[in-house]
């Protein structure tokens, strides 16, 4: 009887010990990370505010706007690094890289134009918001499975 209790105790201990592979579900998606969600939301707010301010400012020159582009690039780089250390993170990293590609493209276009008109600013703002949305959706969908 004591042996059976000991066996049951050991079996339960093994199956519920964090890090033990026995009877642990196979992971086909990344683990959810609330910090990444917060970072993505913060980036979205920052970029939205950046273009919103630009729309109302008299000075819409690239030179004045460069610090904003740099700050957004730093934020998305941080999200890429934070995401890429997780297992099964390839697709979410890809989404973040797609966002970065668009951001840098808009920065380079702004640099080439020298300044922007409000129509261009509103379009940039909308495209970047719509490029970031699916990344946030992906991260939030990971929460459902945990």
């Amino acid at each position, binding site marked *: *009887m004591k042996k*059976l*209790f000991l*066996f*049951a105790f050991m*079996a*339960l201990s093994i*199956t519920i010990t964090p890090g033990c592979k026995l*009877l*642990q*579900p*196979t*992971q*086909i*998606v990344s683990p959810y990370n609330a910090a990444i969600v917060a970072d993505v939301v913060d980036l979205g707010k920052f970029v939205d505010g950046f273009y919103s301010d630009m729309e109302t400012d008299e000075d819409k020159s690239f030179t004045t706007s460069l610090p904003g582009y740099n700050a957004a690039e730093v934020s998305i780089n941080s999200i890429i690094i934070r995401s890429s250390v997780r297992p099964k993170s390839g*697709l*979410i990293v*890809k*989404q973040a890289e*797609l*966002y970065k*590609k*668009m951001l840098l*493209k808009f920065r380079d*276009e702004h640099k080439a134009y020298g300044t922007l*008109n409000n*129509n*261009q600013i*509103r*379009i940039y703002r*909308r*495209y970047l918001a*719509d*490029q970031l*949305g*699916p*990344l946030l*959706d*992906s991260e939030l*969908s*990971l929460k*459902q*499975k945990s």
Partner: protein
Amino acid sequence: MNIKPLLQGVADYLKDAAGDQRDKVEPQINGYVNRTEGRLLAVMVESVDGLLSPQFLAARMEDELGILESQAIAIGISTASFAQQVINTTVKGLLVVVIEELLKRKSVQPE
């Protein structure tokens, strides 16, 4: 410009990305199609006064592909998350069976 065929193409592409799980992600797909429609209409409205150059508009059409790719990835991750839920539930169920079996054995074990 008639954007309906383009929107239908977006919807079909995202449904393909969802595979046989498309029913579970239909609201998400519809949301992305609506966002695409809103974005394209905004581009049309902003270009009415001629302040957007043809090069600028062509560049935005290229950007549509990047957004669509990210949307398809999000659909794929959503469907994988549903599959992960099924796996987790199955493993938890298996654990319960194992524990119940252990307890049964304990109850029939002679002292």
